[in-house]
């Protein structure tokens, strides 16, 4: 029975994804105070991740981790906290030059860094979360491509 449930929750519900994302876009559109283009694109990116996580539901570690990060980011900006200690630079990814002295991390460790909330998982759970995360990421990317395609026509 657990297998059946997990299969059902696997396929992302496209209308739900679209609803959350479009709602967020509408809110962003209304706020004319965001003059800077960079600010707007950053907000849209966070809204995309947040709506993806909302559609996935709280049962997945990655969706909870993403929502925590988005909320943390939003609240720290609101209250004017210094954003130096932001969580793991997830939204501002920079390429880090690998230190040749350090041992090269295993592939599973690299995956753990990429999938949010997967830092302390064992391999089987990590693989499950990754599969779920990829499905939702792909659905979100397709949705955004549709939106861009429709709006730019």
């Amino acid at each position, binding site marked *: 029975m657990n297998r059946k449930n997990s299969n059902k929750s696997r396929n992302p519900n496209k*209308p739900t994804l*679209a*609803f959350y994302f*479009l709602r967020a*876009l509408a809110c*962003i*559109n209304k706020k004319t105070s965001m003059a800077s*283009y960079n600010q*707007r*694109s*950053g907000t*849209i*990116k966070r809204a*995309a*991740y947040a709506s993806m996580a909302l559609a996935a539901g709280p049962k997945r570690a990655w969706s909870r981790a993403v929502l925590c990060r988005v909320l943390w980011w939003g609240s720290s900006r609101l209250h004017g906290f210094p954003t130096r200690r932001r969580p793991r630079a997830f939204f501002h*990814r920079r390429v880090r030059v690998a230190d040749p002295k350090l041992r090269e991390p295993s*592939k*599973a460790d*690299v*995956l753990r860094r*990429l*999938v949010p909330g997967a830092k302390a998982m*064992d*391999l*089987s759970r990590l*693989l*499950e979360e*990754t*599969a779920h*995360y*990829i*499905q939702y*990421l*792909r659905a*979100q*990317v397709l*949705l*955004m*491509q*549709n*939106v*861009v395609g*429709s*709006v*730019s026509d």
Partner: protein
Amino acid sequence: MSTRRSRSRRSSSSRITDDQIIDLVSKLQALLPESHRRSTERESAAKVLQDTCNYIRSLHQEMDDLSERLAELLATTETTSDQAAIIRSLLM
């Protein structure tokens, strides 16, 4: 006593069998974009993990790019009745 504990820990971790891991890795492989080409052969787990990492990175990059494009588009377009039709088509 400590050996008993470590033995039980070892047995609980081996409950996640190799077959389960292989099954999960093959499911992951099926999700990757080139899976339709290589559907018959089973790749090594390391290759699948590497491809998965690359795929996730490329998806993140695409989301960044699409967000930037949307930021541009939202700034320029105005609300029209066409957008209601777009929204309706996306939600159905």
